[in-house]
């Protein structure tokens, strides 16, 4: 019985990430003064299945808007988004989201928090319990299943939130500055953990951040965005072998070249000012 379940999950894991296609995507917001602000302007993008795409840009460049659109939480003004050929107009079952804050439900145990999407999708919760515990082990939290979120540190809580996204076996995983609220050491560990979790599953990831270093370290491709209107200024392919090790990657000449290119864009746009 248990063996069968394992086989099932192995099948799920070998399934590749989703293909995402964004065409002439625009999003306009109406402000209180009734002005229109163009958050995204005519974006065209295609994500290869199983690729790790990072988006960097300053606050207000529309990167979170892009994520909300992909998550199906807000509607497009113009253009189309499709996942594996299906147009998105509402939250899609193939998509999982990790937000900046962990958003754990404090009245549920860690395990029940991870199983929340399974309950909502009305799947058989008992079948996923094993998988939930497996995910907890992968993020170094084995034995924490029956704890409550308030008993966990910030880093541990965000790990649980990542497990909650992974249990949905998302073909596309959206991550909205997931490590933004963590201290530097925890963040470094989480970056490594995320890489190894992703290497097992190889789903398509859209990782939104304002950290140039983590974008380059994690991604196959970095998109650099600038605000008003939100546009993609640079589409950078990161070619470094995986799994990437923290030290060797940070000593890699190529790594510094990529970081430099991104910083140059920000300096040219006046987002970073050299002194």
């Amino acid at each position, binding site marked *: 019985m248990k063996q069968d379940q394992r086989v099932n999950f192995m099948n799920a894991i070998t399934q590749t990430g989703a293909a995402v296609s964004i065409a002439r995507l625009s999003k306009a917001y109406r402000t209180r003064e009734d002005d229109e602000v163009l958050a995204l302007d005519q974006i065209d993008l295609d994500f290869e299945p199983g690729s790790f795409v990072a988006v960097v840009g300053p606050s207000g460049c529309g990167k979170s808007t892009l994520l909300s659109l992909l*998550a199906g939480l807000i509607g497009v003004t113009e253009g189309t988004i499709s996942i594996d050929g299906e147009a998105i107009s509402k939250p899609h079952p193939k998509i999982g989201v990790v*937000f900046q804050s962990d958003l754990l439900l*404090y*009245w*549920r145990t860690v395990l029940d928090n991870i199983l*929340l999407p399974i*309950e*909502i999708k009305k799947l058989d919760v008992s079948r996923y319990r094993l998988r939930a515990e497996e995910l907890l082990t992968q993020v170094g939290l084995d034995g924490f299943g029956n704890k409550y979120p*308030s008993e966990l540190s910030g880093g541990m809580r965000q790990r649980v939130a990542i497990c909650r996204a992974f249990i*949905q076996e998302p073909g596309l995983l959206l991550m909205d500055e997931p490590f933004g609220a963590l201290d530097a050491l925890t963040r470094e560990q989480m970056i490594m953990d995320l890489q190894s979790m992703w290497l097992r599953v190889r789903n398509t990831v859209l990782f939104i951040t304002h950290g140039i270093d983590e974008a380059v370290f994690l991604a196959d491709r970095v998109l650099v965005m600038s605000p008003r209107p939100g546009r993609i200024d640079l589409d950078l392919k990161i070619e470094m072998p995986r799994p990437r090790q923290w030290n060797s990657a940070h000593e890699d000449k190529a790594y510094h070249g990529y970081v430099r290119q991104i910083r140059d864009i920000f300096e040219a746009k006046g987002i970073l000012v050299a002194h």
Partner: protein
Amino acid sequence: MASTDVVRAGRATGNQGKVMAKKKSREPWLERYSALLLTAAVIVAWQIFVPLAGLSKFVLPTPLEIAGRMVTEWRLLLQNSYVTLFEVVSGFVVSVLIGVPLALSIFYSRPFERAIYPILVAFQTIPKVALAPLLVLYLGYGWAPKITLAFLISFFPIVISTVVGLQSLDKNLVSLVRSMGANEWQTFFKVRLPAALPSIFGGFKVAISLAVIGAVIGEYVAAERGLGYLQLQANSLFDTTLNFATVVTISIMGVLLYFVVDFVERKVAYKRDAAK
């Protein structure tokens, strides 16, 4: 499906109890019993003060006299307590049954909120006591005006605390469950309601205390039984000791009802910082 979070929250409370018990045992002895000690000190002082000041028991009976009277008149007090208890609990239950759905309508419907909220607030400024004679006029001398008064006085905090509890939810939590494909029904039972429960129960606790006041005031105006009625009788007979005994009985009832609500809350809702 709706009850799973409630059941889970129940399990959570077991955990909370243990944590609280541990905390208490570490508290110093004096701190732990400070409220009891203060109460005892006041009662002892009262007991000593009355004979020293030479007050007659028509003015101020001693605590021992009051307690003695409660023992001898327990049957009378209990019979009248049943009446008042019935009125209080009925008024409170009506408040919950009307207050919570009203709060949900206010929360979910903007036009409804616009229409009903100002009226509710305006209504709240009316002293409910002033309505008591009118209620007697319309509803007679039975339990109906008391229950109505208990309801009128206690339903406002239930409405407000439920609305506030629902509105104070982190919007990102809604985005989270929406991204998982939750419909509004699931969003309500998985997130909105459990997150609002502490606030809702806060309202219930205020409401149950107010319901006691409502019922007793209703009995003051016109009644043939109940603790408020008994107190009026004692007053007209200059039986100050029985009067005090009734006051003590009313407050015991209030405290017990408060703890019943508190007990239900512990069974149902998990406090955010219980495990800290």
